[in-house]
């Protein structure tokens, strides 16, 4: 029942429409019905919206929506090898870094690793209570035999946060210096933040092998880099205009201004961004374990797959605990940066 057939007939396009008629692939309605395990509803009464699928029924020359999605897929597949050729070598160091860090975190004995992490905590936070808290959490993980997976997760978070900061801060600086750059990058950041994670996992799986660690590395970084970029941009834009004017009046070069005035004064905001980046990369760990990332996420996944309630909940709470630890440590570091700028 082609409702818009008469329309094409009046326009005298019937011959054009019926030329080289082929069997339609599938309409969107059929595709959805397939996914839900039912049959497509045949021709609801009333006037359907003249969508691609409806018009296709009337005139075979007009493509279906399914053609659009297939075209997109074919287009991607067509450039896939070229894309892979370019992206593979560029992203290879990420695999090495992830594998190397994972190796260190896994193979270092607990009696060396724990003091090292506590020392790091102390150096970053200079807070006795935070260090005690971290010690307690580490011992707890070890006590319930989750030490190794926790270390794997921590290793992944460290590498991904490090790379996010490495790229995010310069991008944020660039954005703060140019309104054009800001206008063009902000929509991209919005996209990265709102696009369902699985959506960019799909092309990544096409591009890289699931066994490669950079696959989940890229997924985590794309998601987690956003806040550090945003807050670096914001932080530099919020630097007191009077101080910037003074820097100009005393003849500071652009580089001196950046290093001596803008970055130090934006540091509290940048650190808040780093804190958010850490939290978001931790949030991605479970999804990343779908594509072979090791760590606590694997246990959560196992809990879902095998309906192993206990394992899932313990691992899930473990992630929360890790998140709290990382949050407290980075907040303590932020406070340290913040108070030095004001009063002691």
């Amino acid at each position, binding site marked *: 029942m082609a409702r818009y057939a008469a329309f094409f007939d009046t326009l005298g396009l019937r011959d054009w429409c019926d030329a080289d008629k082929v069997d339609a692939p599938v309409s969107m309605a059929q595709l959805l019905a397939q996914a839900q395990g039912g049959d497509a509803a045949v021709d609801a009464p009333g006037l359907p919206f003249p969508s691609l699928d409806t018009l296709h029924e009337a005139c075979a020359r007009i493509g279906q929506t399914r053609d659009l999605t297939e075209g997109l897929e074919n287009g991607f597949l067509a450039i896939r090898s070229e894309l892979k050729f370019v992206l593979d070598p560029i992203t290879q160091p990420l695999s090495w870094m992830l594998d190397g860090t994972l190796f260190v975190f896994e193979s270092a004995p607990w009696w060396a690793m724990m003091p090292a992490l506590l020392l790091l905590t102390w150096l970053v936070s200079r807070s006795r209570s935070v260090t005690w808290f971290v010690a307690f959490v580490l011992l707890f993980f070890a006590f319930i035999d989750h030490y190794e997976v926790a270390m794997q997760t921590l290793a992944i978070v460290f590498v991904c946060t490090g790379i996010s900061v490495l790229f995010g801060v310069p991008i944020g600086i660039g954005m703060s210096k140019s309104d054009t750059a800001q206008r063009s990058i902000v929509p991209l950041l919005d996209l990265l933040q709102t696009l369902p994670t699985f959506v960019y996992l799909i092309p990544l799986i096409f591009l890289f092998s699931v066994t490669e660690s950079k696959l989940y590395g890229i997924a985590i970084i794309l998601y987690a880099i956003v806040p550090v970029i945003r807050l670096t941009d914001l932080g530099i834009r919020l630097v*007191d205009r*009077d*101080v910037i004017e*003074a820097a100009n*009046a*005393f003849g500071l070069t652009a580089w001196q201004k950046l290093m001596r*005035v803008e970055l130090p*004064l934006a540091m509290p905001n940048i650190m808040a961004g780093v804190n958010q980046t850490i939290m978001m990369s931790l949030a991605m760990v479970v999804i990343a374990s779908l594509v072979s990332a090791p760590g606590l996420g694997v246990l959560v996944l196992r809990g879902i797959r095998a309906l192993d309630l206990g394992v899932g909940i313990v691992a899930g709470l473990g992630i929360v605990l890790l998140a709290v630890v990382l949050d407290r440590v980075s907040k303590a570091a932020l406070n340290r940066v913040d108070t030095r*700028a*004001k009063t002691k």
Partner: protein
Amino acid sequence: MTPKVAIRGLYKIFGADDKAMVPLVQGGMDKSTLLSAHRHVLGLCDINVDMQAGEITVIMGLSGSGKSTLIRHLNRLIDPTAGEILVDGTDVMALDAAQLRSMRQKRMSMVFQKFALLPHKTVLENAQLPLSVQGADAATQDAEGRKWLARVGLDGFEGRYPAQLSGGMQQRVGIARALTANTDIMLMDEAFSALDPLIRTDMQNLLLELQKELQKTIIFITHDLDEALKLADHLVILKDGAVVQQGEPQGILLHPADPYIEDFVSDINRARVLRVRSVMRPLQGEQFNGDVDANSNLEEMIAKSDGDTSHIYRVTENGETVGQLDMKDLVKALVPRLSGTHAAN
């Protein structure tokens, strides 16, 4: 004498097509017409000021008069729409980026209304900033920074952070920072306006004391007439982006050029501001009630004469007789002349 800094025919118009508006303004279009008909704001209009070396030039005006815009033209924090800014005869507009930076580092330093210190640096590091920007060695930086901090009365505070100091002390750091740059020109943008009245007086005295010793060319912006009269060697009064009157402050006080200035100066304590040299006459008589210094102010004279208007004093300056002061003239000078009486004179 060629001026240290000269501003010639300076215009600043804010808006998208500012250059095209200059002929209109030169043709006599006023601020409100320019805004309503062309959507451009007239910031500064035909400014011509000479600033002599070793003098304090005070630019005064109410808020919105364009005084802060004007001072920012001198080191090109703001670029003019038209006109010239000559520093030691060279046009600042002709400088490229590197030359401009070098001029800001070595020729002109600036003190800001809101201090604009680096909050994450200590007082000493703030004072050293101009030298560290120029790449001076650590020992020089340290010595110069400490020297000027001590000179503005801040020894012992080197290791503190700006937020730990009071406003007055923070501005002392601001002044020390400007002095460390060792420039011969100092720009002071409402430097004391954010301070309490008592501290402001302290800082004015500090500035005058430093100036006696250092003989810098200071361009000082203020909205406070008392402050302007106290500090100025040359006073420029701005209104709506144009110079209304400029000259020696005592002269402006005694001979205001238009009703706006008359209004302005009418609330001033003239006895404290006016000095004997401004109201004395050439020497005529021979009988005097005593000798007075040409630089005493009228308040001191009233105290000295005990209010007796029949007294006549001989005026001396550096030991030489320069004129005589009739107390009747002094009393007349205390009353601000209004336009009406001015015409009758």
